[in-house]
């Protein structure tokens, strides 16, 4: 197994290629997901969604991105410039690193770290710093309220998320995502850990700040929450980050609970993406069906329901494994 410095020093063309590949994947994936989101919401709401640009409106988001890039980057006078400017980067950069940890198929991984799961959870909580920087740096009351909510929500939901992951680690005795996925050749862990899977998915949805947990950007209360003052491609980066975060949460769910690339007939990578996008569709379904929770209800849901349930689940898992 190669170690960290070796990768960056020794095989830098490979690193560069992988980074470019990941960036390309993120961009294309976000474009397609935004298109999919618009189509799914349209179907749920008995509309057509985008139809004009390209077949089935597939190129609509591409055109939107062109528009966003073409827009002037407005920096309001009253913002704290360094924080305001660095916030979109802080939100987006950790997610970029995360994608390199995801095994797509048997052996299809940028680098198989022993502690991939820890890295992943650590990095995925980093982007909250960017969100808070955006809210604080914007010097806008709505943005600040959104940022405060986002911090409280992300910290609260990190705990059930972690507690839901631990039983899997105990079962497989590994923190490597590749090994965890390999261990599910016979059956996916959702069959033995259904509660953990549900808790993980709920907490994961909350981590991505998507409806019904979208209170940090609650449009009807906080206008646009932490990204109220952002426009043009800076706003686009926040958007890109949200959709990338969705992919990561769903990828991890697929690896931990749905058996990763394991599946009959079809090739492994196809199974992996089918599962990931299936979960993403469920997240979209949530968003277009449920109203938004209130801030205090959201917090009490995490602390009063999810955390105790996850703890009980952890306890039962350890006891059963010990027996």
């Amino acid at each position: 197994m190669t170690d960290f410095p070796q990768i960056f020093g020794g095989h830098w063309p490979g690193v560069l290629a992988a980074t470019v590949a990941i960036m390309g994947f993120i961009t294309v994936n976000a474009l397609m997901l935004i298109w999919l989101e618009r189509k799914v919401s349209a179907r749920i709401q008995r509309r057509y969604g985008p139809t004009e640009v390209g077949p089935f409106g597939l190129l609509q988001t591409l055109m939107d991105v062109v528009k966003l890039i073409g827009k002037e980057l407005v920096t309001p006078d009253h913002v704290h410039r360094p924080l305001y400017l660095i916030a979109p980067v802080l939100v987006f950069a950790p997610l970029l690193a995360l994608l390199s940890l995801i095994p797509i198929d048997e052996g299809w991984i940028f680098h198989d770290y022993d502690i991939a799961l820890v890295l992943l959870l650590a990095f995925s909580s980093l982007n909250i710093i960017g969100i808070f920087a955006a809210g604080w740096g914007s010097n806008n009351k709505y943005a600040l309220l959104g940022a405060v909510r986002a911090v409280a929500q992300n910290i609260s939901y990190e705990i059930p998320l972690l507690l839901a992951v631990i039983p899997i680690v105990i079962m497989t005795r590994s923190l490597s995502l590749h090994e965890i996925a390999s261990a599910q050749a016979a059956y996916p862990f959702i069959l033995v850990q259904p509660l953990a899977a549900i808790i993980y998915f709920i907490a994961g949805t909350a981590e991505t700040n998507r409806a019904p947990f979208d209170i940090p950007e609650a449009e009807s209360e906080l206008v646009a929450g932490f990204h109220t003052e952002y426009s043009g491609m800076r706003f686009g980066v926040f958007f890109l980050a949200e959709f990338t975060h969705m992919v990561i949460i769903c990828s991890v769910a697929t690896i931990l609970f749905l058996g990763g690339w394991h599946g009959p007939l079809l090739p492994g990578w196809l199974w992996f993406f089918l599962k990931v996008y299936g979960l993403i569709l469920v997240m979209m379904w949530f968003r277009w069906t449920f109203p938004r929770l209130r801030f205090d209800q959201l917090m009490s849901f995490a602390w009063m329901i999810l955390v105790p349930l996850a703890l009980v689940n952890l306890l039962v898992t350890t006891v059963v494994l010990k027996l």
Partner: protein
Amino acid sequence: MAETMELVPDATDPKTYYLNMGPQHPSTHGVLRIRLHLEGERILGADPIIGYGHRAHEKMAENRDYLQFLPNSSRVDYLSGMIYNLAYCQAIEHAIELDVPERAEVIRIICGELNRISSHLLWLGTFVLDLGGFTPFLYGFDDREKILDILDSITGSRLTYCYGRFGGVTMDVDDEFLRRTSDFCDYFKRRLGEFDELVTDNVIYQQRTKDVGVISSDLIQDYALSGPVLRAAGVAHDVRKTEPYGGYDRFDFDVPVGQRGGDCFDRHTVRMEEMRQSLRIIDQALACLPDGPIMAAKVPKRIRPPAGDHYFAVESARGHFGMFITSDGTDIPVRHKLRTPSFVNVSTMPVVLPGTMLADTVAILGSIDIVVPEIDR
């Protein structure tokens, strides 16, 4: 200037701050501004600041004759324009003691109730939108579109109708209209069940609305609230029942009341039930639509109500809508006061909002169903 002084933020307390909600805000349903005094997310004080949509309707009424004001009437509340338009006609007919043919009365009731359903549908959609649910909004607009199409076919307009005339209505309804209306009634009865499944039974929706923004019957008496807000508090008051006008006494319908003491969920259930009752009224009206003229035989060329005060009230989609007309016997009113329910309902906000969360503000504001131009007139 004393009032302006009160509006200066209290800068001495570092823990609290002021938040301007509106006049440009997604959830104030127009150009309403609410100045919120907040501690974290908790509301300490709320002042609705109105007047951004003021169009001087009352003043306009004072410098033109009665007929010339007719098109203004539906612009007062653009969401239930038909009810307001017909109410103005009925107020003048009441003042000059003009009888309306029975067919015109029944047509007015059908159109008024259709308009009430469309107004409630828009309320339902925007209310759930305020709570973060996007889909019911489009479902509501979809069904509302059907009503607009039906009304469009006889009035020629879709939002600000000018269908009533002193003594009747402008156009007679045809079989096509009756068929489409009864089709819509059958369809919408099923649809209401779907709305119940999608919205009323949703756990998150119930959490967001139950025991939130209780407007009790005591408060209602102090502020003279009306409409669904009043009925949600458990008072079975409906102008259509208590002071029947325009032939409503011929129809059989119930006045729904809230069971939970007047919270947001009560206001929701009351409006949902009102839509069902409106369907009942339309069904009966379609069955008993008499033949005959749609305009009174003798309508005076110049409308000159006898000198003195005239008051006429109807139940609009938002509550008790009253018109107080002071006439000096000429064809131009001396004073035309519009008593609009949204104005009264929004005036309780300084009492109801404190103590709730920021997210409840949009829920409560949405649940009382305000139309901002109707507040400002």
